[in-house]
């Protein structure tokens, strides 16, 4: 029953993630999806995973995403947030994918569940540090490499000496917005308003 409640919560928040125009609200409803997912994890005998997901996704990832959104986004809604890219087709594709997955899940017949024993985090830790120790080490190494890569990529954008000498391709200097149709539209809308573009 509680599992069903959490599932409904996750699906509703997911629909909100699709439907909200304001990207901040979308990111927050993604956080709601992840929190509901944590409830589902607890119902599925995975308390450690629930805590880890809550910390990593909601605590770290979403907050960093929100930082970037706030840093990149003006308070005004951008034009590209108002419209969707082929909404009908993407919903059709999503429904098709879901129906295939539904058919596949109904089709499979797996063994009846093993007798239930209460979950113990210590067992997971034992497994992690005996049988799968190399996997854990390799994933830790990957995390280190990803950290270094993120720092390098973020630095390159700031002062890239190759940017100007790149074989005749004049990479436009940073922070010069390309005058596009959307900018012109925004200007037109602004001139139609009495108060200008507030």
């Amino acid at each position, binding site marked *: 029953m509680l599992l*069903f409640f959490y599932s409904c919560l996750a699906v509703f928040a997911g629909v909100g993630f699709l439907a909200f125009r304001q990207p901040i609200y979308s990111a927050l409803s993604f956080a709601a999806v992840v929190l509901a997912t944590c409830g589902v994890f607890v119902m599925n005998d995975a308390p450690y995973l629930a805590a880890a997901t809550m910390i990593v996704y909601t605590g770290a*990832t979403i907050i960093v995403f929100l930082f970037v959104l706030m840093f990149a*986004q003006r308070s005004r809604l951008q034009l590209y947030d108002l419209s969707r890219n082929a909404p009908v087709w993407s919903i059709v594709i999503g429904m098709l994918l879901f129906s295939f997955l539904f058919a596949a899940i109904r089709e499979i017949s797996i063994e009846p569940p093993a007798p239930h024993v209460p979950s113990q985090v210590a067992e997971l830790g034992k497994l992690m540090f005996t049988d799968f120790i190399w996997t854990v080490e390799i994933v830790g190494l990957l995390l280190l490499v990803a950290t270094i890569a993120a720092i390098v990529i973020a630095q390159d954008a700031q002062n890239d000496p190759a940017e100007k000498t790149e074989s005749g391709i004049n990479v436009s200097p940073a*922070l010069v917005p390309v005058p596009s149709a959307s900018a*012109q539209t925004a200007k037109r809308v602004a001139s139609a308003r009495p108060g200008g573009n507030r």
Partner: protein
Amino acid sequence: MNPATFQTLMLAATLFAIGIVGFLSRKNMILMFLSVELMLAAVAMNFIAFGAHYQNYQGQLFAVLILTIASCEAAIGLALVVSLFKRKATLDIAAWSDLRETDREANVEVPVEQNEPIESYPVLTPAGTDPLVNPVRVSKDGALDTLKA
């Protein structure tokens, strides 16, 4: 099948479909990226469901690995998004349609047709005295002093 397992698998499928709809339909780069994260979380939920079904800890272990990969992906992807934002000062994915296949047409942003501008705007009646006609000045003892033009 165990009803709880079935329900969890269905939830994972639903979240995966929601993620792909978001990835295809959103134009904001960060939100497209969040959609991919949603799909990854849905896949991790499958591992949890089967792990709980078989009372086996390997499902949880693989979910932990997926969580680690997801955080790596978030770090690198956000660095890429930030560097792309620094180039063009927009999060619009259509700004990078130069990267498309050469035989494809550009996905030109069709500006949303705005409503017709309103013909008449409400007018506020000016209140008080016009400062150009009757300038108000503060005299030395602090009282307001109105000068007749």
